[in-house]
């Protein structure tokens, strides 16, 4: 009966003529050009050009820094700390993440699904939640510090490194597990039959073949470390990296000079590093020529493997998972000490909190909607090389830029640009900034999903009579809807989570993560209690999970109809 109803629903939609209309206009070349042109113009006009022009217009302000040696050395120290930490953390991520990825991809235990999910937790949690959680765990009474009397790790560079490790580690694991699962194990088997011990086979064959995934996961981890602002601010103490410096410069009202100086260097160096890794990555030779058979054979033994896996799991649980989840304690305590009822009655600081939360979700939802609509044609353009080989490749590279540029630097540049248009309200600039930062997540996810669909399916559909819109509706969309969902969700969570660009572009509005950073007030005494901060983070996390769950159910509902 329900099937009949669903069919009737579909027929009535067709009868309305909407599909027919879209179908008819979709086969007209003008429609195609218009759709793609709008997507490309949107990308250049709103995402790529404003930050570039914004920073270039203000380059003359840099003189302010050169005239102040103290400020200059402080700014340079902050910038170099950013890159040193990002590089160090990404390397440690690879060293620690690879064995865990291997363990998850290759072991057959039924507990692995559980472990696999646990690995994602630091990735799903907003970074401000992670920052506060780590702060509580390592530095404040009530955390692991209480076992040692005083604060075990005070806010500073070490805690920043621990924080960046925690949130970038799951990226390496996630990407490498995927790569290992896609990898044809027959190469490894061939290597074993030719006499290579397990470790030699992994090193000389598997790792070499998986090098592109390794490089791209490294870039992602690196970019995430360079970009993160809010949580870093919480745990940095007196230490400054690039984003912390910009944030401090904003609150200390140091003027535009230092902002332009640091943002420009961060953007330029990130871009150069990305370009160098992209260009040299394929040529990068892993050390596969030399082999040490007896040594590697000993390291391939099952005892060594068990010890390696144990050490790695202990590191994961003690350094990554436990500190990430520690914020749950004050959140649970808030339920019993009356903080929850205060929060629900919207008294005191909670009034502002709920407004901020609403603002965060509103911006997140709108940005998700806009990027989905405008990112789809761009994804098709890139995946199917519709703009010709060279322009498509150029677009493919260009859409990554917001991903690799530190978000606070991007925010600073955008603020410079859009402040020229005084009539544009702050919330619109905030939305523009979030669109910029989250755009690559959607386009990347969709483009690679569309690339995976063989051209033969499209050709078969067209030969059977489907016009472009029907082809998209009946073939591309059903086959890519999970990537569409994943891409849209990434946009939403990244937007809700964002602190760097947000702190740069807003002066009156406060999104939830910015408000939480204010509560923690890293440079002074907290303006809220641990219970309040814990509960505030708790609401943010729970609501984000609820949105995720609802979206999953919506996608499933659609799946049943097919």
């Amino acid at each position: 009966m329900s099937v009949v109803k669903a069919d009737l629903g579909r027929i009535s939609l067709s009868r309305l003529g909407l599909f027919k209309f879209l179908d008819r206009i979709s086969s007209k070349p003008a429609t195609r050009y218009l759709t793609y042109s709008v997507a490309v113009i949107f990308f250049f006009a709103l995402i790529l050009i404003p930050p570039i022009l914004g920073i270039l217009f203000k380059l003359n302000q840099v003189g302010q820094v050169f005239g102040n040696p103290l400020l200059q050395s402080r700014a340079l120290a902050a910038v170099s700390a950013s890159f040193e930490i990002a590089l160090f953390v990404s390397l440690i991520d690879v060293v620690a993440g690879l064995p865990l990825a291997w363990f998850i991809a290759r072991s057959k235990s039924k507990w692995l699904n559980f472990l696999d999910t646990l690995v994602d937790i630091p990735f799903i949690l907003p970074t401000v939640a992670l920052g506060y959680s780590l702060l509580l765990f390592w530095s404040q009474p009530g955390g692991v510090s209480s076992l040692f009397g005083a604060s075990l790790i005070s806010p500073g560079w070490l805690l920043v490194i621990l924080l960046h490790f925690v949130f970038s580690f799951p990226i390496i694991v996630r990407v490498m597990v995927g790569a290992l699962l896609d990898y044809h194990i027959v190469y490894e088997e061939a290597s074993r039959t030719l006499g290579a011990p397990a470790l030699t086979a992994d090193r000389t064959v598997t790792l070499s073949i998986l090098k592109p995934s390794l490089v791209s996961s490294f870039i992602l981890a690196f970019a995430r470390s360079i970009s993160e602002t809010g949580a870093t601010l919480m745990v940095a103490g007196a230490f400054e990296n690039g984003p912390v410096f910009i944030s401090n410069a904003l609150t200390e009202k140091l003027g535009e000079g230092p902002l332009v100086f640091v943002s420009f260097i961060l953007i330029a160096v990130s871009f150069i590093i990305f370009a160098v890794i992209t260009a040299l990555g394929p040529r990068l030779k892993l050390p596969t020529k030399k082999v040490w058979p007896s040594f590697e054979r000993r390291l391939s033994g099952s005892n060594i493997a068990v010890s390696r896996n144990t050490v790695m799991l202990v590191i994961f649980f003690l350094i990554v998972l436990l500190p990430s989840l520690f914020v749950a304690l004050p959140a649970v305590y808030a339920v019993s000490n009356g903080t929850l009822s205060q929060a629900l009655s919207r008294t005191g600081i909670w009034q502002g909190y709920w407004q901020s939360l609403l603002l965060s979700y509103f911006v997140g939802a709108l940005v998700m909607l806009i990027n989905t609509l405008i990112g789809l044609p761009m994804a098709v353009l890139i995946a199917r090389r519709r703009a010709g080989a060279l322009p498509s490749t150029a677009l493919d590279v260009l859409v990554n830029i917001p991903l690799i540029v530190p978000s606070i630097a991007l925010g600073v540049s955008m603020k410079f640009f859009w402040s020229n248009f005084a009539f544009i309200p702050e919330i619109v600039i905030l939305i523009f900034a979030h669109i910029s930062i989250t755009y690559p997540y959607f386009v990347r996810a969709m483009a690679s999903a569309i690339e995976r669909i063989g051209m033969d399916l499209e050709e078969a559909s067209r030969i059977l009579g489907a016009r472009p819109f029907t082809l998209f509706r009946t073939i591309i969309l059903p086959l890519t809807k999970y990537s569409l969902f994943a891409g849209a969700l990434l946009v939403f969570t990244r937007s809700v989570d964002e602190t760097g660009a947000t702190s740069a572009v807003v002066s009156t509005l406060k999104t939830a993560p910015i408000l939480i950073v204010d509560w923690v007030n890293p440079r002074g005494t907290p303006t809220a209690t641990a219970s309040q901060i814990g509960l505030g983070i708790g609401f943010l996390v729970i609501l984000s999970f609820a949105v995720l769950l609802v979206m999953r159910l919506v996608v499933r509902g659609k799946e049943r109809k097919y």
Partner: protein
Amino acid sequence: MPEVKVENVTKKFGKGKIVAVDNVSLHVKDKEYFSLLGPSGCGKTTLLRLIAGLIQPDEGNIYIDGKLVNNVPPEDRGVGFVFQTYALFPHMDVWGNVTYGPRVKAWDTQQSNKIGREMLEMVRLFERSKAFPQELSGGMMQRVAVARALSAGSKLLLLDEPLGALDAKIRLELRYDIQKLVKDLELTAIHVTHDQSEAMAISDRIAVMRKGRVLQVGTPQELYMNPQEIFVANFVGEANFLEGYVVSVNENESVLELRGKLRVKVLDKNKSLGEKVVLAIRPEALELEKGHKKVENAMLGRIERLRFEGTNIRYEIRLENEDLVVVTRPTLVGEWFNVNEKVTVSFSPDKSFVFMYPSKGLREELMAE
């Protein structure tokens, strides 16, 4: 010297629900070219991977050179393995692939280079040393895969459908090349294939497998001339299968009654009177004459369809008892017959096989999977 013994080996997948290899025992002799033949999913590749050590048996033992190797990792079994997809390392050139074995065993560089050169010259690809796998044709990749498998000095070569991905013509050429190589180098080879003509052409002995079990082991001639099971008679070569009953058993022969009370004489005398049986006759063993003739084991019919196959002509003949039989005749020998023409089909009693009627029915017994 490499001989391989497989004793009562069982391998299950999917939490024991799928029995890929079911209590198999085999003995592959030194310097023998041995084939595992069967339809896809019969367990032949699983058995080969068990021998290579890429997977471990649930039960039973595997011996290479008389040594129990159940717990020996693949790198220490001294086998060469040619994969169906070749598995040439895409990030290494031909030279890198072929010298990989000596390299990971840390052999002396000079020795590795010498072996690499010899192996590539043997497969006539030395001049393509610098090429990457994706720049080679299918046939070349296959030859590099063989050279690589042998470069580590193995005397036991395991080949998993090594010709499966090649064009028909190249497949024909390469199968003899591989066999000659194996014989020249005095290797032992175990070759997995689903192509019976390939197995027949190159093997010293063949094991026919179905549903994880070995049905029969023998030389190509033995399997063709004396199949022990209906499936073997059908899979190795081709056969007509006619259902009937044993109506008399004499000292030298038996008489079967087929459908339509058609009686024929066969040499088999091991079946009991009244037993339901299946008579198998190869299409090339059937005689064909125009008109209705009174000859031994004559079966009258009419040509229903004719297919020209090049070397042979294939006639499908509807017998008077409604059974359908296929007869093949060499195209260039004797006269041709026409569709609808009345013919007499006959066979010599010594060129037929009689099997017990299978408990699950004839159709099920003939199914490949």
